[in-house]
């Protein structure tokens, strides 16, 4: 099965690229393929200018030091048998860098960076709340001083009031450590908040990518437009809301995507051509937005 098909992404140093989409769009697979956790069958992944696809196990180990992953579910991403201090130190120990990186002092510093006291280091993960566990997961990802963090839905399983804490923490860390983020999420509001640029995925392909303000203010791909319009907004309570694009049907099975443009069966602008020819990804005339659509343009 082809979960991700011809995806191109760029993340610059110190920048956040948001990757959004609904279930089955391949956003998590994309993140894992970059980490080499799932095998990719073609294309190129360059990190700091170096091609990392097809690297030997040993060389990949070196790359993994500089790029780390933060998981969605803080309950399942920490080994229940390890104390949280050991969990944070585990990447260092695997790479044999524990002492070189500063040992206990560095671990204490990591706890401090994510807003926890290092006096809790001996405790087991089950003694922590979801938000605290996610902080521990972030500290663990930072232990090897990576340049890029791949954040896979890092706040999706947290309560609303805790989400904001983690989002703020991530923004602070990015500023202090000039980290690059690939922020994978389904929640368009969170992505809007944290990203510099945003890419939208649908059934394994990127359909639109632009700077944050362009994408949210003037989406050109019909799917992006529908997606943005579907998000329930708080202001509806006081201001009412404008017309909404309600898409017909549901997301098709990713293992048997529709022909041509994968979105055409649900699209309000689809023509004959869309069902036959897959649109190329490129700059939309008169905008700074890139999209893969035969009929890009402002919403209906």
């Amino acid at each position, binding site marked *: 099965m082809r979960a991700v098909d011809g995806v191109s992404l760029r993340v610059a140093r110190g920048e956040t690229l948001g990757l959004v989409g609904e279930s089955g769009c391949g956003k998590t697979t994309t993140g894992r393929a970059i980490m080499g956790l799932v095998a990719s069958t073609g294309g190129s992944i360059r990190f700091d200018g170096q091609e990392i696809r097809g690297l030997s196990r040993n060389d990949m180990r070196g790359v993994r030091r500089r790029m780390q992953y933060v998981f969605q579910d803080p309950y399942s991403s920490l080994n229940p048998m390890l104390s949280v201090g050991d969990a944070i130190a585990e990447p260092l120990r695997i790479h044999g860098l524990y002492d070189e990186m500063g040992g206990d002092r560095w671990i204490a510093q990591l706890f401090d960076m994510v807003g926890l006291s290092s006096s809790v280091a001996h405790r087991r993960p089950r003694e922590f709340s979801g938000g605290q566990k996610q902080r521990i997961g972030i500290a663990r990802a930072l232990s090897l001083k990576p340049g890029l963090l791949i954040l896979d839905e890092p706040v999706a399983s947290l*309560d609303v009031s805790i989400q*904001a804490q983690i989002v703020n923490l991530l923004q602070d860390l990015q500023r202090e450590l000039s980290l690059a983020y690939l922020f994978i999420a389904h929640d368009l509001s969170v992505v809007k908040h944290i990203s510099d640029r945003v890419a939208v995925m649908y059934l394994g392909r990127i359909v639109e990518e632009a700077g944050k303000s362009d994408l949210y203010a003037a989406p050109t791909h019909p799917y992006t437009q529908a997606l943005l319009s579907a998000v329930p907004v*708080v202001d509806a309570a006081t201001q009412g809301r404008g017309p909404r694009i309600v898409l017909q049907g549901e997301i098709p099975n990713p293992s048997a995507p529709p022909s041509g443009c994968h979105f055409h069966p649900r699209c309000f602008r689809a023509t004959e051509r869309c069902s036959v020819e897959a649109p190329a990804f490129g700059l939309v005339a008169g905008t700074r937005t890139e999209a893969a659509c035969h009929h890009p343009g402002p919403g209906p």
Partner: protein
Amino acid sequence: MQQTADRTVAGQSADPVLSIRSLSVTFVGSGKPIPAVRGVDLDVFENEVLGIVGESGSGKSVTALAAAGLLPGSARIEGSIVLAGRNVVTADADDLRRMRGQDIGVVFQDPSTTLNPLLPVGRQIVEGEVAHGRLAPVAGHARAVELLREVDIADPENRARQFPFQFSGGMRQRAVIAMAMAGRPKVIIADEPTTALDVTVQAQVLALLALRQKETGAAVVLITHDLGVVAEVAHRVAVMYGGRIVETGAVRDIFAHPRHPYTAALLRSAPRIDVTGDRLDPIPGQPPTPTDMPAGCAFHPRCAVSAGRERCRTEAPPLRPVGAQIAACHFAEETTVASAGIPASARTPL
């Protein structure tokens, strides 16, 4: 779903169809008793959507399941829940069963597990009606087709004969809505009905739920953690925290002028797609767990207003009218529009 800005709070003058008084629910098991709901008063009127919002552990789902009489045997329930003139708490199993379907219907969170995988969907939809003798078994299929058509399922004739695994997530949830409405109940409890769905499908299902509510005039109790969903669908809202209602009133009033510091903080902390801002304003600390509830006002350890105030730490605030709504805060008057509202200039058009 299009809504006019002018939404009236419906039916307030009539008698409520569902009336909850001093409801407490404690789960007793092998460990410490868990007080999940600690004194809730709530009225639901016909032809309205009441949203109950709260974070995990706030007691919102337990309150709603108590109203449907669906709590497990380990729950100790105190207070009264009067549904269509009968008390659910004291009703015996037979009475309770007769109320289901015609007085109350339920839509659950995860449509992938709420349907029996081994039975055809159509049969499951009308099963309750047949069991109550309100529908002849031979008329079952025709009625199921009709109900599926009402929830916009294409080809209902064949779909009724299919099994849940042949339905997509959104279709299953439509089928569950059809099932909950099969007996034309006066109250429908919808417990996080769209949480498990994708956002484009959520929009479809919410629109359908609102439409069917309007067509039937039923009361809908919508439980959710998503303020946006409440804002778009509900007429009135009850905000729960630590097993209690901390604020309730018309959606418009509460979202424009929250009076409880928790409501205000919640509105400020959520990242919003319709607002451009640099920094979120989180609520410090964690939501309390039922076994470890702070004394006095449950929100005081996280509250800016309570800082240095003895009263918040010792005395639980009662619900009282503040402005257009009802709030449970000793200092509700201090929670102002400025501290909660979003400046209009920050709004971006969609």
